[in-house]
């Protein structure tokens, strides 16, 4: 895979993280060292091996489609940083046509 160069600022933007220049300079060599270590996985023959997504033998558990009690609106809103009229308030997300 030989990809151990990582464009930290580009990936941070994908992850919706705004990094300072100092953080980019700190993380760049650290992440490259980690990726270099991960490169060792290329030595293994994985032909025909099924991936393991999680280790528990449970798949597609179905349940009856019955409404059940959920958190009341007041409990949900108690932690909202900004709210009005029983709803969470956010900055404008649509631009003027």
């Amino acid at each position: 895979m030989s990809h151990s160069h990582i464009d930290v600022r580009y990936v941070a933007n994908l992850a919706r993280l705004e990094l300072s220049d100092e953080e980019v300079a700190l993380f760049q060599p650290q992440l490259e060292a980690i990726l270099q270590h991960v490169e060792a996985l290329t030595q293994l023959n994985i032909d025909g091996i099924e991936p393991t997504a999680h280790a528990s033998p449970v798949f597609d558990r179905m349940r009856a489609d019955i409404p059940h009690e959920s958190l009341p609106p007041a409990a949900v809103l108690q932690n909202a940083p900004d709210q009005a009229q029983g709803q969470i308030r956010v900055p404008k997300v649509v631009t003027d046509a």
Partner: protein
Amino acid sequence: MTITQLRQQLLAGETTSTAILQQLAGEIAARDPQTGAYLSHDLESAIAEAAHADLSLPLGGIPIAIKDNINVLGQPCTCGSKFLSENYTSPYDASVVKKLRAAGAIPFGRMNQDEFAMGSATENSALQITRNPHDPQRIPGGSSGGSAAAVADHTAIAALGSDTGGSIRQPASHCGVVGLKPSYGRVSRYGLVAFASSLDQIGPLTQSVDDAALILQAIAGYDPLDSTCLDVPVPDYLTNINDGVRGMKLGVPKEYFGTGIDPGVRKNVEAAIQKLAAQGAEIVEISLPHSEHAVATYYVIAPAEASSNLSRFDGIRYGRRAANPTDILDLYKKSREEGFGPEVKRRIILGTYVLSSGYYDAYYSRAQKVRTLIRRDFETAFQHVDAIVSPIAPTPARRIGAFANDPLHEYLSDIFTISANLAGIPGISVPCGTTDFDGGTHLPVGLQILGPHLGEAKLLQIAKAV
């Protein structure tokens, strides 16, 4: 005192739940300013609960400390992060907390941890330092460092932690207490703030093996709110706990005893294995051939899952929201920049990278296949042995600050614990002696015992014999 001892006193009328809480509050006031295990605690509401504790229940009247990433109704849940430290109060009980309450226990205290459980030293907590009660210059281990330190410091009777790559077992080893990571699916994760959903599991940190069994008994079992929680009967974990190890076959993985292990750790672990042999266990050498790839596999899969799980911290519904954003995207990015510490950012970036277009197959998909190979190593081993015994960590607790800015070095110390999470099997850390290390004296060492999926009863039985 252990849960078992306190329960005897409660039932004999020699103490009360309120008296136990007041005693704990005194111990916390005396020693926790130095240790720093507690992020917060609410004595008043715990005493109100103690007043009507039902002593007929298995944990009736017993306070249990809770790692600060498990939701308890009306209490903080900071996850050791500035993202949640100011503006978050849990609106519900995690399923394990409901189960503890149903068994009569009182959740009391919020325990420090690495931010979002990412770390092995509790140094990544954005809120405070926790010190090892055996040597205040040293880490308690992590990420459940507050839980382990409080139990070791006798400022908590027992605690819950979470283990994604060793975060219950390793701090238990460093602090000289018992720590149990149950099998994946044995205990509900509902209400545990998710780090890596395919690896996370909640478990107890206690002063004794019996206490670990008591707490597991209370929290194990089916929960419709966690689709990965197994609908499988829970055995009685105390029935055979004193039956010893005679006739059992215990595997010693040769890959776990190579170079890099501190001689004091090796000596104590080998002595513990000899002690089990002297009680009639047969000790055999086994091989887990893919062990050397566990750290690389884990540090692809865990950050990948973390980058997805932590996308919920966007500044909209709860937690930190940056002031004066220019638009919604700016709000997301600034809130996350302000709220997360460096280790969390590193792992989010790493996880986003390995899942990004063009790299997914090379990293994430490949790591999932190596995970299958690691899982098969254990399946093969458990065809021949009842359990596997090994060290927990290559060294005893290191000094605070020793690995600053060298995350890879820190990750490599997880080598003996992370395979159990990748394979979904249970593991326990039980104290097996002390050693001198790097200028420190009498530092605790833990023995790790790993068993097949849902094999907790046998692990507890072996641990009791150590």
